[in-house]
């Protein structure tokens, strides 16, 4: 949870508030203008599967570039140094490329409308319902946590009361999602992406000048925090100590494989953006186009974290002083004049709202499509589901706002919840990866793998770790062990259950399992999609190579 220090009040003036006000007006305008495009439930949930790749790609990266991510990764930069780049180059890029090149043909080709719906096709109703319920509950609670974090930040930066921020931000998200569905969520995410960059780039430029450029940072921090602080891999040998508390093996397997693949490939709030693309080629390119900005984002997030540490050597050292999470707000306060400061405040607020909107728009899809229409009220006319989805959005935002208010009195509980959800994706990933690559996996195995994996992670976290039965040094370490537990328990259970239950007949698995093809005519490529720069393989491998090259200056 974000807690900003007192005394971070920004010197905003009327100019800054004008910039913020214009943004709110535009966002509302997008909602009203997108409304006329919503004719069917598919328009509301997936923009009618009709958006071009550059829009879905930028929305894909923006849905992840929430304010908690921006402030949190700058904080990691100040706390762990250059190690933070692992969250990007190994902890995101390989998984994004895998999603685009390997998994997207199954997702998009099977015409599913959500990640749980894929489980309906591959396994059956029981795992479908289980994952839908887990997802619906967790996304609404995460929306509430996001809203609470936003309120805390705005209170520190602008002096707004908590309830004002919660009500105002909640209302705007409610308005534009209810009106325009996923289209308005995606459009505001694309807008937010550019606004936040227009804030972070000037911040980094001015900050670099203040501390004497990259050389200034390196000299100061190498001297103060040791040489390893400014490198990616020094001190990550097994058994040696480093600020991150992880070795190269746990970085590669834990962060780079289990956690990152779980998040990027099965988190519906992300995958939904790709499913709204206009054809298979565009869907594949969605995470691949997103990978390129993702590679470069550390330059405007991690570097400001380092700059803040140079400027404020006491950052994170005293309990009641400035915290690591304050890194970017401190730079905003000390370096940005009115004008750009307004852009920065708008960017942060936009990032919070977009993060919440991504949770809400994926929640209303899963609740309406995978729970309501699939099990509660079947076979109603499509208009009924569009209306339901709008009401579900209202209820989702209100529950999120309620969660945010409760969170303000139980802030520790929200911490646990957030951590808990961070590894809910791992059991889902196990079920996906085994189900996609092992044709024999049975429907029962899907259900039990998902259930035991989730329960295993919870048992590890709440019982073994919180009760102190197993000694794990940090929360970060506990998350990692929970993910491993979820992964191992889920896969073992799936293999065992598969051996004793009946698989689905092969003809029902066409287009759902590796090595098979969707029935019917293959989709014809659209004109222009055969251009070399639109080849998914080239984009994907290009991103992997670029991420690897980025490591070079920080490795030797």
């Amino acid at each position: 949870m974000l807690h900003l220090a007192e005394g971070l009040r920004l010197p905003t003036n009327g100019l800054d508030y004008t910039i913020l006000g214009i943004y709110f007006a535009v966002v509302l305008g997008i909602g009203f203008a997108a409304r006329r495009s919503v004719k069917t439930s598919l328009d509301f949930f997936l923009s009618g599967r009709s958006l071009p790749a550059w829009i879905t790609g930028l929305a894909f990266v923006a849905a992840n570039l929430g304010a908690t991510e921006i402030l949190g990764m700058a904080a990691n930069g100040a706390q762990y140094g250059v190690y933070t780049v692992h969250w990007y180059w190994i902890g995101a890029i390989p998984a994004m490329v895998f999603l685009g090149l390997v998994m997207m043909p199954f997702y998009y080709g099977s015409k599913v409308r959500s990640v749980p719906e894929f489980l309906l096709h591959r396994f059956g109703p029981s795992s479908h319902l289980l994952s839908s319920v887990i997802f619906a509950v967790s996304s609404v609670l995460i929306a509430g946590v996001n809203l609470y974090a936003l309120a805390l930040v705005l209170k520190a930066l602008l002096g707004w009361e908590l309830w004002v921020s919660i009500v105002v931000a909640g209302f705007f998200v409610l308005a534009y999602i209810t009106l325009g569905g996923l289209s308005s969520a995606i459009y505001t995410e694309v807008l937010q992406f550019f606004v936040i960059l227009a804030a972070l780039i000037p911040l980094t430029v001015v900050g670099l000048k203040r501390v004497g450029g990259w050389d200034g940072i390196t000299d100061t921090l190498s001297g103060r925090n040791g040489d390893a602080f400014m490198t990616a891999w020094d001190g990550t040998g097994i058994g040696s100590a480093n600020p991150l508390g992880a070795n190269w093996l746990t970085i590669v397997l834990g962060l780079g494989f289990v956690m990152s693949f779980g998040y990027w490939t099965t988190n519906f709030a992300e995958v939904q953006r790709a499913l709204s693309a206009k054809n298979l080629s565009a869907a594949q390119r969605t995470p691949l186009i997103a990978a390129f900005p993702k590679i470069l984002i550390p330059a405007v997030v991690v570097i400001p974290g380092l700059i803040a540490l140079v400027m404020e050597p006491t950052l994170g050292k005293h309990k009641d002083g400035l915290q690591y999470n304050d890194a970017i707000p401190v730079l905003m306060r000390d370096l940005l004049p009115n004008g750009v400061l307004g852009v920065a405040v708008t960017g942060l607020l936009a990032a919070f709202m977009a993060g919440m909107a991504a949770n809400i728009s994926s929640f209303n899809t899963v609740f309406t499509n995978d729970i309501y229409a699939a099990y509660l009220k079947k076979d109603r006319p499509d208009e009924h589901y569009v209306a339901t989805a709008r009401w579900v959005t209202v209820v989702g935002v209100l529950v999120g706002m309620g969660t945010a208010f409760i969170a303000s009195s139980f802030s520790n509980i929200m911490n646990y919840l957030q951590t808990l959800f961070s590894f809910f994706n791992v059991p889902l990933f196990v079920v996906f990866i085994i189900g996609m690559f092992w044709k024999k996996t049975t429907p029962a195995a899907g259900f039990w793998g998902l259930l035991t994996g989730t329960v295993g992670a919870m048992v590890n976290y709440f019982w073994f770790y919180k009760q102190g039965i197993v000694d794990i040094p940090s929360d970060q370490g506990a998350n990692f062990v929970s993910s491993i537990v979820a992964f191992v328990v889920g896969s073992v259970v799936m293999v065992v259950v598969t051996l004793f239950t009946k698989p689905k007949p092969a003809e029902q698995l066409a287009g759902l399992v590796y090595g098979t093809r969707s029935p019917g005519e293959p989709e014809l490529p659209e004109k222009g999609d055969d251009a070399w720069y639109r080849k998914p393989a080239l984009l994907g491998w290009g991103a992997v190579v670029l991420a690897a090259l980025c490591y070079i200056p920080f490795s030797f």
Partner: protein
Amino acid sequence: MSDKSNTPAAAQAAKDVEELERRSQTAARLFDVRRIIGGLFVVYGVIVTLAGVFASDEDLKKAQDININLWTGIGMLILGLAFLLWLRLSPTIPPPDAGQEKEER
């Protein structure tokens, strides 16, 4: 609940999506986001550039003697105009409606 009943449900879902995709109006009626990005960034660009033109000494000192409002404003203005230019050069092509498609076949 039994997993045996899933085949019709899954097949029905896929069929529903095809039907909905035919009736979808997003492609035909959703406005182009380039217009919004372009418009907003031109407005922001003008505001922030003006703040840079009339920057006080205090503002300049705070931003380490870089007229950051001026540069950011110009950058935003260029980005906004670039999006509007892109929209102008390759406007959205409305998809052929169902009737035309039949004739072509």
